[in-house]
C-alpha cells in the first residue's frame, strides 16, 4: 500500500478549513497536544501540520491566484527519516506513512532541516517534532463508519480538493484523480525525494482576448453616458 493525498490546486478556495480540522483532530491524537503559545495575543505561535499559502501565478494568457495547501508529502526517499539519529522518525513498511515516535524524539531539528517542504515543525512546549500523520489514528479506526476513515483534512474540504487513497490501487480515488490530469505533479522533483502526495495543476482556462475588449466601440445613448461617467 502507498497511502497519500491528491491536492487539486484548481478547486482549492484557500479557506484553511483543512488546516483547522487537522489541528482540531491531531491536538488530541497520537502525537498531541498541538498547543499554541499566546493563541489569543498579537503573535500566536505553534505547530501546524498543514499550512496554506497563496501565490499569484502570472502566465502570458492566464494569470491566476492559486491557494496552495501543504502537509507532509510522505516521500518515497524521505531524508527526514535517514538523518534522524534517534530512530524517532520512521516510514511504515505497510503503507508508507512517515511518522515521528514522540517518545523517542530528542528535538534536534535535523529532520526539519532535511525536509524541503516545511512539513515538520518543532513543538517547543513538548520539545518534540510534529508532522502530519495522515490521521493514522483515524483511517484505521474500525469503530468509525467506513466513510469516515479518512484524514480530517480530506473529510472537511468543502470543495473536495483533497483526496485520500492508495496509489498502488488503480481504482482508488487518488489514482483515478491523477489519471485524467497527466498523473499529477511532484514538488521540487529535482531533489529526488519522490513525494507520494501529488498536486493537480489548474486546468487551462478559456482564453480571454484582452484586445477585443478594449477595442470595442464605445456605446452610445444612456449606457454609453453611464460608462463614461464611471470610467476611471
Amino acid at each position, binding site marked *: 500500500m502507498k497511502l497519500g493525498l491528491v491536492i487539486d490546486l484548481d478547486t482549492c478556495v484557500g479557506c484553511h478549513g483543512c488546516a483547522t480540522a487537522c489541528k482540531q483532530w491531531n491536538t488530541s491524537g497520537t502525537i498531541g497536544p498541538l498547543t499554541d503559545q499566546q493563541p489569543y495575543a498579537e503573535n500566536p505561535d505553534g505547530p501546524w501540520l498543514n499550512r496554506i499559502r497563496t501565490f499569484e*501565478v502570472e502566465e502570458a494568457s492566464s494569470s491566476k491566484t492559486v491557494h496552495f495547501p501543504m502537509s507532509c508529502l510522505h516521500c518515497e526517499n524521505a531524508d527526514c527519516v535517514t538523518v534522524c*539519529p534517534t530512530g524517532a522518525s520512521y516510514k511504515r513498511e505497510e503503507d508508507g506513512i512517515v511518522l515521528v515516535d514522540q517518545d523517542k524524539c*530528542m528535538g534536534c531539528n535535523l529532520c526539519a532541516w532535511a525536509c524541503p517542504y516545511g512539513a515538520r515543525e518543532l513543538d517547543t512546549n513538548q520539545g518534540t517534532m510534529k508532522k502530519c500523520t495522515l490521521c493514522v489514528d483515524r483511517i484505521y479506526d474500525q469503530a468509525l463508519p467506513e466513510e469516515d476513515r479518512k484524514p480530517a483534512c480530506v473529510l472537511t474540504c468543502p470543495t473536495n480538493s483533497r483526496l485520500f487513497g492508495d496509489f498502488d490501487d488503480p481504482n482508488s480515488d487518488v489514482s483515478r484523480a491523477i489519471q485524467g490530469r497527466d498523473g499529477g505533479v511532484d514538488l521540487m522533483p529535482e531533489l529526488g525525494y519522490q513525494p507520494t502526495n501529488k498536486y493537480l495543476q489548474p486546468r487551462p482556462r478559456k482564453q480571454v482576448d484582452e484586445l477585443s475588449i478594449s477595442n470595442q466601440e464605445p456605446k452610445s445613448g444612456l449606457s454609453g453616458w453611464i460608462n463614461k461617467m464611471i470610467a476611471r
Partner: protein
Amino acid sequence: MHPAFSVLFFTVTSGFGYGFMLCLIVLQQLGLLDMGREEFLLWSGVAFALFTLGLMSSTLHLANPKNAWRSFVRFRTSWLSREGVFAIVGYPVLGAYVAAVWFGQTGLWLHVLALVCIALILVLLYCTAMIYASLKTIPQWHNKLVPPIFLTLGVSSGLVCVGLAKGWQHAELSITALFFLGLSAILKLQYFSSLGKPTRSSINTATSFSQASVTLFDAGHSSQNFLQREFVYEVGPKTTALARKASLTMAFLAPLVLIALLWSKTVTDYTQLAAWAIVISLYVGLLLERWLFFVEAKHVVRHYYDKS
C-alpha cells in the same frame, strides 16, 4: 539558517579539541613533539576539555535532551548518530593512548593505537561536516568543499594549539601550520565564490508552475512561525560582506602573518603573547566563519515564502 550559538560553539570548539589531540599524537609519533609525560598529560587534558565542552554544548540546542542517549541508534544512516557514536568511542581510545604515554609504554602496539586514534579523529571531523553536507535541502551546505574545509580547519586549529603549547620554536611546526592555514583559506575562498552560482530549486520548481512568474500573495498566517524562524534568517548583504572580510582576516590572515613573523625570528620578544594571539584570533575568526556558514545557507523552504 538560524545560527544557534550552541551549534557554532560546538563545531568550532570540538574542532579545536580534536584537532589539538590529532596534532599531539601525530607529532609525538613522528618524534617532533619534544614533550615530557607531565606536559603531554596536561595538554591532552586541555584537548579533552575542549572537545568535551563542544560536545556538551551540542546537546544544549536539543528541545528534548532527555532522549539524547537514543541518538546512537541510527548509526547506519544518520551522520549525527555516527558523530555521537564515534565521540563516545573516542573517550576510551584516546584516553588509552594518553595513559600509555603516561606509563611510558612503547612498542608496535602503541603505533597501531596511534593510527587508530588518528583515523578516529579524522572520521569525527568528517562526521561533523557531513551532518551539514548531507542535506540536499541546503545547496550551500550540500557542497563538496564542506568536508575538506572542516578537516583542514580542524588540523589548523590543532596546529596553532601545539604552537601555543610549544612556543613556535620548531620550523617544521611553523611550515606545517602555514600550509594548513593557507590551504583552509584557499578552500574557504573557493567556497565563497561557489555560493554565487545559481541553485536548482526555485519558487517555480517548488510550486510546479515552471513557465509562470510566481509571487507569494499571502503566507497564510499573521505572525512568524517555526519555518520562518529556522530557515528565513535574514542578514543584510553589507553585514555578510563585512563578516566575510572579518572572518578571513581573523581566522587566516592574522595567524598566517604572526606565524610567519615568529618563524622568521623578526619577533623574538612576546613569543608567548603572539602564540596566544594566534589561537584567540583563529578561534574568534572561526566562530564568525561558522556563523556565516549558517547565515549564508539558504534552505529550499524559503522558496515557499518567496525568498531565494
